[in-house]
């Protein structure tokens, strides 16, 4: 029975399909060696536990537009960094620095989000072990080693 059960669980675990919706460490889904910067317009915001999601339309040099999903920490952690529900509005142009999903889909873990007014907020989940995670709410902005709220 135990064997059958663990086989069942192993089977479901190996399905590993996108999109990822729940709470997990950075390395469970994202690749720390694949940094990416997105500049685009907000199309949708999900201010949700245990992770928040927002979506941006990014147009590349050839004029092709792709909708990217960006995953950030939950409402509690983001609020403590001064990012309130409603700060991001549909149509806002933002800059997101993050890391691509391991499965190659158009999903990134948003580590640094720059708002239209120039304000920059750390986006990682506290304690997720991803780049910039220093065990605190604030985290370090990728590449700077500085606390995020500036």
């Amino acid at each position: 029975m135990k064997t059958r059960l663990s086989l069942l669980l192993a089977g479901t675990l190996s399905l590993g399909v996108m999109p990822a919706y729940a709470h997990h460490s950075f390395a469970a889904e994202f690749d720390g060696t694949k940094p990416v910067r997105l500049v685009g317009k907000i199309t949708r915001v999900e201010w949700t536990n245990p992770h928040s999601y927002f979506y941006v339309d990014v147009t590349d040099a050839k004029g092709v537009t792709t909708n990217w999903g960006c995953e950030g920490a939950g409402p509690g952690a983001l609020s403590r960094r001064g990012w309130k529900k409603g700060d991001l509005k549909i149509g806002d142009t933002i800059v997101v620095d993050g890391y691509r999903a391991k499965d190659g889909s158009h999903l990134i873990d948003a580590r640094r989000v720059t708002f239209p007014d120039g304000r920059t907020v750390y986006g990682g989940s506290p304690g997720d072990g991803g780049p910039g995670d220093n065990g605190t709410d604030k985290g370090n902005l990728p590449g700077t080693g500085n606390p995020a709220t500036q």
Partner: protein
Amino acid sequence: MPLLQHICQLLYDSHVGTAIRESDNAFPIIESVHVLGITLLVGTIALLDLRMLGLVLRPIPITRIARTVFPLTWSGFVVMFTSGFLLFWAEAAKNYSNPAFRVKLILLALVGINPLIFHTTIYRRVHEWEALTISPWRARAAAIASLTLWSGIIIAGRAIAYF
């Protein structure tokens, strides 16, 4: 849209579901309460299971242990079920298609059937065997099923986060 999925979407879009999902603190607090409820429930159930397997509290008759843990087990169940439902309320539309959540529900159904069989069969004659160091095989089978299923439920529950 299948009826079940429709119901999940209604729960998800409701005021309460949305409030929990978008809360700063309620969601993580409910998650913690859920884990504490599981601790109480599964911890006390495991005690009885391990006693029937002859691994702990051997000199103590089964019914004495059962009577002692009964209120704790049910308190744990109420806390676990209530907090679990609140978490589901907040995430219902996402849970619906989550394979780990589906496995967890199946295991929960099985773990509910287990004590029904146990209490209507071998446990009816518990006074004949409750003082034995190791319980009869039917009781041991129920104990192993219980321990295995609850372990699977906790693993599947944790795995919901990874889909």
